[in-house]
């Protein structure tokens, strides 16, 4: 394994981490707002707040880690993606800012403030859409070099079916992942009503998730034939991903083993996400930028890897402590202990 591949793998793992915890977070915000709107907040809000409160800040760090690491390992991405992404990512930042701060405002400052919960619910739903534009652009065809500077063709981007397929997938997957996780969490809390409601949401969002995921592969055939061919080379990964998807839906349908169901779901996304990533190799931005010509100098690469290893030695035990004290603490999950400041 070359250090370039190690670098991109590490970053891909963190992006996956962000997508998973972020999806739970964004979806939870949306379900929370939806339940407030429908007058059902009594059912969902407690479960959602209990999960989110101690971890909301951590979620954000996964994203920061990803983009800082990206610039660190692959500084040329700043040149290509920085210029072209100004508008979509700025929208993403604004949504993120509204969401993050209004979450804190609602949770810690003004419990039960409807405006705040709507703001963070809606912002969370739009966020995956605005950030997933990056994945669309990376497929190539939307960026042109004019006078040596990359320029994004917005018209082409907004009229491409690929764009919208990825946007719909990001939305459906967000709600699906979140609902499946919260079903498990609510069930652990012994909250039958919330479990039932969330189970229903999980089943509703399962189908659009898998349909759009398959649709994107078809779409790529037209848009980026090289990538399409590469995807076929990794077909066992995608097949496995599909089987795991069936397993998750089956378990949730039968109201059995929600924990295992969420595990299978995580597996489904791992295989699909890494299959997608591997088939994208070696391009960061097709056809301008590969991981090889954008890689940083060897001295910095080694320094970053060393920092990364020491960082993980610090983080993994800390994360474990966090999970043990809240997510896997029975009394906390059931709401018997509420020791917030």
């Amino acid at each position: 394994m070359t250090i370039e591949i190690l670098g991109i793998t590490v970053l891909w793992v963190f992006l996956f981490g962000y997508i998973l915890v972020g999806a739970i977070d964004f979806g939870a915000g949306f379900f929370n707002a939806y339940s407030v709107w429908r007058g059902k907040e009594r059912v969902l809000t407690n479960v959602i707040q209990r999960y989110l409160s101690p971890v909301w800040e951590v979620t954000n760090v996964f994203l920061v880690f990803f983009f800082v690491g990206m610039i660190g390992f692959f500084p040329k991405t700043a040149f290509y993606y920085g210029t072209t992404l100004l508008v979509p990512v700025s929208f993403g930042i604004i949504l993120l800012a509204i969401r993050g701060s209004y979450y804190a405002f609602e949770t810690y400052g003004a419990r039960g403030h409807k405006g705040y919960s709507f703001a963070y619910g809606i912002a969370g739903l739009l966020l995956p859409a605005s950030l997933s534009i990056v994945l669309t652009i990376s497929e190539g065809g939307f960026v042109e070099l004019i006078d040596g500077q990359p320029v994004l063709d917005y018209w082409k981007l907004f009229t491409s079916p690929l764009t919208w397929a990825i946007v719909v997938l990001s939305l459906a997957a967000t709600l699906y992942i979140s609902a499946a996780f919260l079903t498990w969490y609510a069930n652990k809390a012994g909250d039958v009503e919330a479990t039932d409601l969330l189970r229903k949401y999980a089943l509703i969002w399962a189908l659009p998730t898998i349909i759009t995921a398959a649709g994107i592969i078809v779409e790529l055939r037209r848009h980026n034939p090289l990538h399409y061919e590469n995807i076929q080379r990794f077909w066992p990964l995608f097949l496995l991903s599909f089987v795991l998807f069936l397993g998750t839906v089956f378990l949730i349908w039968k109201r059995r083993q929600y924990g295992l169901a969420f595990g299978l779901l995580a597996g489904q996304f791992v295989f699909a996400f890494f299959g997608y990533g591997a088939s994208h190799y070696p391009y960061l931005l097709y056809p301008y930028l590969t991981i090889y010509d954008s890689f940083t100098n060897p001295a910095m690469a080694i320094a970053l890897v060393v920092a990364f290893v020491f960082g993980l030695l610090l983080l993994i035990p800390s994360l474990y402590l966090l999970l043990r004290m809240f997510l896997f603490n029975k009394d906390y999950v059931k709401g018997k202990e509420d020791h917030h400041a």
Partner: protein
Amino acid sequence: MFSLDSVFYSRVLTELTLSFHIIYATIGVGVPLMIMLAQWVGIKKNDEHYILLARRWARGFVITVAVGVVTGTAIGLQLSLLWPNFMELAGNVIALPLFMETFAFFFEAIFLGIYLYTWDRFENQKKHFLLLIPVAIGASFSAVFITIVNAFMNAPQGFNLVNNELINVNPLVAMFNPAMPTKVAHVLGTAYMTTAFLLAAIAAFRLLRGSDHVYHKKALLLTMKVGLIFSISAALVGDLSGKYLAEYQPEKLAAAEWHFETEENAPLMLYGVLKDGEVKYAIKIPYALSILAHNSPTAEVIGLDQFPEEDIPPLYIHYLFDIMVTIGMLLLGLSALFLFGMWRKWKFVESRLFRWLIVLSGPLVFVSLEAGWWLAEVGRQPWILRNIMRTSEGATTSGHVDTMLVLFALLYIVLGIGSVVVLRRMFIRNPVEREIADRAQEKGGDIR
């Protein structure tokens, strides 16, 4: 070609984001230390008031952290969005501290979550106190690493640029650049100082507004002590920063001091206005600039005449310097007077007038903070990487920066108002008297 409009709007947007972010970021660096001190004093003295102080600070802290985190994410991404050419070059050399900053942030985020949700969970308060140490370390180290990045922009080193190619990159040499020690020390010290005066202002305000509870008096005494210590440190490190500038960035010092001609026995200019290249109404302190720059009243200080015009920073930074130093000195004096007065039991330090002065110190310290950062940043114009890359070469070529500027301005208005409204509501609805009464009921009346 470089789009000049984009350069201008990128500068404005970056300045706007950073100016807004540092308000919350500074609180984010300082408050964990203050909470830690209060909790520690509470445990040592077995005084519930201090524990409650820590708890109430922590509660308000969450709101400021939230805004600090999201605006920090904004500036993190804007670095690449607005300055892609700069990040492409600098990323090769300075990625290490940027990366380490995210680890510090991660570390803080994890333990802050745990700390906030484990009040009264442990029988032993010391265990809970231990959780604060990683929070405070994480908060301060984020500031350290990100300041190192900024120091690098002032004094880039650790690489060779040959025919526009970077060679011999050494990330550690880049980190430990000459600007780093004074910058880091000044940023940390002033962050603690700023927070101390902010919290002192709150305590003084509550005392003025009818609540005469001993809780606020304890808060005031603790915060003023910390305020004094760190205003002294800020002044000392400020002096060292002057010496650093004289040695490594003489054009910044000369512009800040309106020191036009290289000379020995250089006087220090305070205040005054600049009209047609002439300094008027300034207070001249003989030899002081030579002392500030080289610790010797007769030393030669390099003036602006040594630099080509296109390398000289805007001269208005002199006003920023005056604002920063004046406020810093006033606050040092105020806290010293307060503590001395308390020790000698002078009546007037507990008078309404004096308390209003302390309330005033809260906003003033933030004015000083902003002025200091603007001085530091505008003072290295026209460079984004001193002597390597000009600001105009680093900016984006996208034509949409002006629209984004409007959007972000709206965002910061919304966040600013939202955070103030929520904070006010949190503390007005639940004044300390009521919380103490509630706790007394729970615990069977052993606190008052």
